[in-house]
């Protein structure tokens, strides 16, 4: 059994579509400075090890973890890079957790950093590089490239999301208005978060429904932006956390599960996931993480959740699949305000990925915000006391789900 791990602090850089005033190391530095600001007794010299990650090939520059070493304060210290596509941040957080839990001598304070400066590079090339191999195989099996682009224009992240949306909408019989309602809640929350990107304090459902379709049923006003930004999270041991911060956040469960890939599949062989909104991977991840955390009734025991939802239909889907609400009831919860800032189970009060998406950092920002909500230090703090929270991530080859369950006390051992 590993050591009990705690989160002592988390920090963010400002997010925007073009952070033209900084370069990548400077952006990362902003997040680290903000993270250390919350733990005044700790200096960068006290950090024992680093975990770092971003999307491969997005900025057109490789091994960033090495050439920005000085900007992270990581010189002559153990450093590791983790990159798993959209879940990079979630995997970085879990790697930070493992580093502390392992109990290696001299490794107590671990800084987990994830970042993305999308305005620097060509995101579409980075995304396509994930699937180039499979695309070449399909081409060799007799599908010309022009047909492939047609088939796969529904195959990027938004394409997968719109398939999920049609499946989900059929099952739960929701309308586009229900999707817009989720967006409005997120953008309003983002307006109250200092580091968020799409701040739209006066957005209405009608305005969202007024924008054109990108891919049915998702409209332009519903999709996430492409942001520049960074996030840092400090993991440490139980003893040290009690020294350096007022309310240590205990990490009680983590999960990271890859399900079958959607759509194209391995070597163009399609997918066994007939209903794309079923998400067996997410169900399994939450089962594992909740079991570790000793949570048996997530619907009652979880006080706050940050889920990875670039698109509104996913937010509805994840909160159900992670066990926070009954199947097909999420829409009602948004309608009645259960998920709002002052609701019973607030969701994505930072505005979520729907309002801020620096891809590599997004899945780290979820547990980071969830931890800050327990500490009472979040930018858009919920009024009620948060005892347990969760941060979730989705990505990889659209098949990986990560999750971190946190609480203000260690897991009860029976």
């Amino acid at each position, binding site marked *: 059994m590993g050591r009990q791990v705690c989160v002592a602090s988390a920090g963010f850089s400002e997010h925007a579509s073009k952070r033209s005033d900084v370069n990548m190391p400077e952006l990362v530095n902003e997040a680290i400075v903000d993270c250390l600001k919350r733990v005044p007794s700790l200096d960068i010299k006290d950090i024992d090890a680093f975990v770092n990650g971003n999307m491969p090939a997005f900025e057109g520059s490789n091994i960033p973890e090495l050439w920005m070493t000085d900007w992270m304060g990581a010189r002559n210290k153990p450093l590791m890079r983790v990159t798993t596509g959209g879940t990079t941040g979630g995997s970085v957080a879990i790697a930070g957790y493992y580093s502390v839990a392992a109990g290696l001598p001299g490794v107590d304070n671990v800084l987990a950093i994830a970042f993305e400066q999308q305005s620097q590079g060509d995101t579409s090339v980075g995304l396509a590089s994930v699937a180039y191999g499979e695309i070449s195989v399909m081409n060799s099996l007799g599908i010309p490239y022009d047909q492939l682009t047609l088939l796969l224009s529904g195959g990027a992240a938004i394409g997968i999301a719109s398939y999920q949306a*049609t499946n989900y909408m059929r099952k739960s019989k929701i309308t586009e208005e229900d999707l817009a309602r989720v967006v409005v809640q997120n953008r309003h929350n983002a307006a109250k978060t200092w580091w968020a990107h799409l701040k739209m304090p006066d957005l209405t459902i009608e305005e969202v429904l007024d924008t054109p379709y990108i891919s049915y049923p998702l409209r332009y006003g519903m999709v996430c932006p492409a942001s520049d930004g960074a996030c840092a999270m400090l993991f440490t041991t139980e003893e040290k956390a009690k020294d350096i911060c007022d309310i240590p956040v205990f990490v009680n469960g983590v999960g990271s599960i890859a399900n079958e890939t959607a*759509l194209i599949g391995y*070597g163009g062989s*399609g997918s066994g996931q007939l209903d794309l909104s079923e998400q067996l991977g997410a169900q399994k991840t939450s089962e594992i993480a909740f079991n570790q955390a000793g949570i048996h009734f997530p619907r009652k025991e979880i006080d706050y959740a940050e889920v990875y939802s670039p698109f509104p239909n996913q937010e509805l889907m994840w909160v159900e699949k992670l066990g926070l609400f009954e199947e097909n009831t999420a829409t009602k919860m948004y309608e009645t305000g259960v998920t709002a800032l002052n609701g019973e189970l607030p969701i994505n009060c930072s505005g979520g990925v729907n309002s801020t998406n620096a891809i590599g950092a997004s899945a780290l920002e979820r547990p980071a915000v969830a931890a800050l909500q327990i500490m009472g230090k979040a930018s858009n703090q919920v009024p009620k006391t948060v005892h347990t929270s969760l941060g979730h991530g989705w990505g990889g080859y659209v098949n990986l789900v990560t999750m971190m369950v946190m609480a203000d006390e260690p897991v009860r051992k029976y």
Partner: protein
Amino acid sequence: MSKRTLRKSMGYIKKEYPRTRTIPASWYLSSYKFKFNITHMKPFLDKLKQKKLVGLQCSSCNRIYFPPRQICGKCLVKPDRWIDLRETGRVASFTVTYLKDPETGEVLERPIVCAQLDGADTSYPAQLDPDIEFKDTYIGMPIKVHWAENIKGGLMDIEYYDSIEDSAKDLQPKEE
């Protein structure tokens, strides 16, 4: 409407940042060699040439893969049983793409579907009859293979899927 005006109309509060020195550069990915064994595809492609459809079945869990798959992820077993499949199937999921017609500049709405053949346990992205409007597409819609004119023994031999009549009736609950 451009992206900027769209966001403005949604009340987006934008913060402007000064610009630091920016140096343009480019990074070309060189060509590479992707290894992929397609021996398991041969019988499938040969059958396609005869306008016949076959799926590959895992002898451990009995799932039928169409198109064939090299390994069953559920069992870590190489599927090895060829099963004849019918030409009919159903829409497992769908979305719509918006493409500009290169000649007229008109934006076309084309439904793209995940097609699951009857008997198969997997679905794959495919195209529908271009005459079908996306508003008429639904999940569970019965479809049938439309063969291409020139059969070449490739995946494009199935040019697209025709919609066929749905024999299912909407049953009304019995009135008391």
